[in-house]
């Protein structure tokens, strides 16, 4: 088989993750879906690096992971704070971004 299948897989994962972001209301789950998307991207990067025979793709994936880690840390912190203030983990409850 050809490594392109990995790409197809990552595309699918990415899409699924995106749908999750759109559908789930629980902040944490939503956040996980974001992680899922990131991973999908990583898979693609890794595959690319293999296809082109150089490691830059992997470097990219590496950076993505690092950034994702940072993001998770901050994001979860925010989630905790929100939960403290309004005892709920639902995104829809924080709907003050109105005109």
């Amino acid at each position, binding site marked *: *088989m*050809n490594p392109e299948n990995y790409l197809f897989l990552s595309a699918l994962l990415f899409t699924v993750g995106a749908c999750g972001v759109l559908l789930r209301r629980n902040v944490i*789950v939503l956040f996980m879906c974001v992680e899922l998307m990131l991973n999908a991207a990583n898979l693609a990067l890794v595959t690319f690096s293999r296809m082109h025979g150089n490691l830059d793709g992997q470097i990219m994936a590496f950076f993505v992971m*690092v950034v994702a880690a940072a993001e998770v*840390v901050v994001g979860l912190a925010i989630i905790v704070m929100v939960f403290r203030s309004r005892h709920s983990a639902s995104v829809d409850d924080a709907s003050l971004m109105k005109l």
Partner: protein
Amino acid sequence: MSTLAPLTSLAVETSTSTGEAVQFWILGPLALAGALGTVLLRRAVHSALSLAGTMVILALFYLANGAYFLGMVQIVVYTGAVMMLFLFVLMLVGVSATDSLKETLTGQRWLAAGCGLGLGVLLMAGIGQAVTGSFTGLAQANAGGNVQGLASLLFTRYVVAFEVTGILLTIAAVGATLLTHRERVERNKSQREQSQERVRAGRHVPPLPAPGVYARHNGVDLPGLLPDGTPSELTVNATLRARGQVREVHREAVDRVAAIEQRTATYHGQPTPPKPKAVDSADQADRSAEDDNEHDGEHDGERTEAAR
């Protein structure tokens, strides 16, 4: 390590080894299933677990793609650290907190589905368009070892980015602590003050009863029973109550308590105490009301479930 076997025979120019193909066709669907699970499962914990699963599989794929370092990092950092972090927060927020399946935003589902479908199709089409029959493996790229290769790139070409990400991580850590650390603005209330205001507020003045009294075991999430055997939620920790994680008190326990009371009464030759209807929450009021007319345990159980 059986998955690592095919990795040794890597870097074929046109097509990968059948082993890898097999592996892909087995694990790929699993990964997809995990992803779907993440999205579709109602309880956050479940989705977290299925996500972890997906990530592990992805780690395997990395390895299969010759990204040994990343594969390991994936397992350690993601599946290890990040997902654990997620689980911690979940515990904090409530493990069994579930989304109700009802969509509140009108049209959200359809739009989401439409977008998802569209994106999927487009990405597929894009990739399909970009398909080139052959690919150059990582044979000579990984010649000096994958980690070394990465390192040589990381500390030469991408050194700036590397430093910057380091700064980013530091900032993230500091930010996280700042965010979660709560500044106390007023001095602590003294015990005296607390009790005073409790009395003023007319709330439960004496200390709360301990959980697990008369119960089969004294788990902290098991409500204590009142003399008539009705469980009192007051005895359970407020957080658990908030999360709705109060354990069921099984009917036998209740009956047994009642029986004991009966026996002691007859032993002392006292008249049987009437079953008091004194209850402390409407929840239990209707429950005990139901106890009289129908005696079905698990039905009772899922009723309380619904009551939550």
